[in-house]
């Protein structure tokens, strides 16, 4: 009896087409088509299928959702969850096994600061790396530098790490030559 108050369940064989609005948690085991607006949590269970524009506070998807989901707090796609559509929410959780196709918008993401830091770091790394090529200290600097560059421009980054092995090869050749002359 207690569970009946303040919780709405859409059973497996139920189809609701149209608009659904409410201020309480909603569990969908059946089908809902149209628009779905809640001020609380929507749970789409594995048997549930929602083909709707969804606007909620929290959304947990363990079933199928086709349509755009806007959540004021979070959207979680569980292992069984399948979704096609766009997500707009400050927190989006997609676990391993979930399938999703669409765009995700987490709002204002502070990417600007990180980018400028990377760009500053790159010119610093290059001058150090190039002159150090013939000398031994080069490999110590290398591992950090190529990773950063690879993210943005793969081609120049790949070309440079290929160079350092050359001196090693040269050294080995010299040794072989020395061995031959002794014999």
């Amino acid at each position, binding site marked *: *009896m207690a569970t*009946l*108050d*303040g*919780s*709405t*369940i*859409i*059973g*497996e*064989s*139920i*189809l*609701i*087409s*149209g*608009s*659904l*609005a*409410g*201020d*309480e948690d*909603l569990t969908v*085991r*059946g089908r809902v088509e*149209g628009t779905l607006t809640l001020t609380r949590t929507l749970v789409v269970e594995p048997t549930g299928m929602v083909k709707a524009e969804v606007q909620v506070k929290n959304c947990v998807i363990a079933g199928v959702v086709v349509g755009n989901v806007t959540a004021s707090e979070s959207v979680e796609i569980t292992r069984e969850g399948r979704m096609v559509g766009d997500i707009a929410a400050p927190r989006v959780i997609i676990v391993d096994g979930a399938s999703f196709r669409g765009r995700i918008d987490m709002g204002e993401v502070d990417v600007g600061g990180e980018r400028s830091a990377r760009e500053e770091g790159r010119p610093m790394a290059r001058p150090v790396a190039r002159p150090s090529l013939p000398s031994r200290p080069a490999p110590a600097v290398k591992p950090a530098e190529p990773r950063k560059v690879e993210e943005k421009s793969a081609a120049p980054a790949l070309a440079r790490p290929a160079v350092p092995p050359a001196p090693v090869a040269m050294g080995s050749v010299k040794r072989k030559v020395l061995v031959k002359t002794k014999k």
Partner: protein
Amino acid sequence: MAGIEKASAPRSGAHTVIGSSIVIDGEISGDEDLVIQGTVKGRISLKESLYVESSGVIEADIETANVEVSGQVTGNIAASDKVELKADCKVVGDIRAPRILIADGAVFKGNVDMDVKATKGK
């Protein structure tokens, strides 16, 4: 008496509950019991029982096997088995069912048709 019956028998089979703060505008269809505590506008068609609780408000045509109304219904009700209007309910619309029960205290305005087969024949 009636409250106890309602609480035990139908609830075990009722998987679907439309809570009191929920508003549905559209169509509901299904093969299972449905309990409505909220608001539904549009159309309801079920193969099982519909329970409109005291907080429930329906502005829709209803087509089910059984209907039990404790809340408000505006619209026509067609049941293949039974329609029960409980005390304190308010129903406006036509009712068509082989068995119709109207309890003392129920408010009802509309036509009642119990002889389903006869009307079909005419």
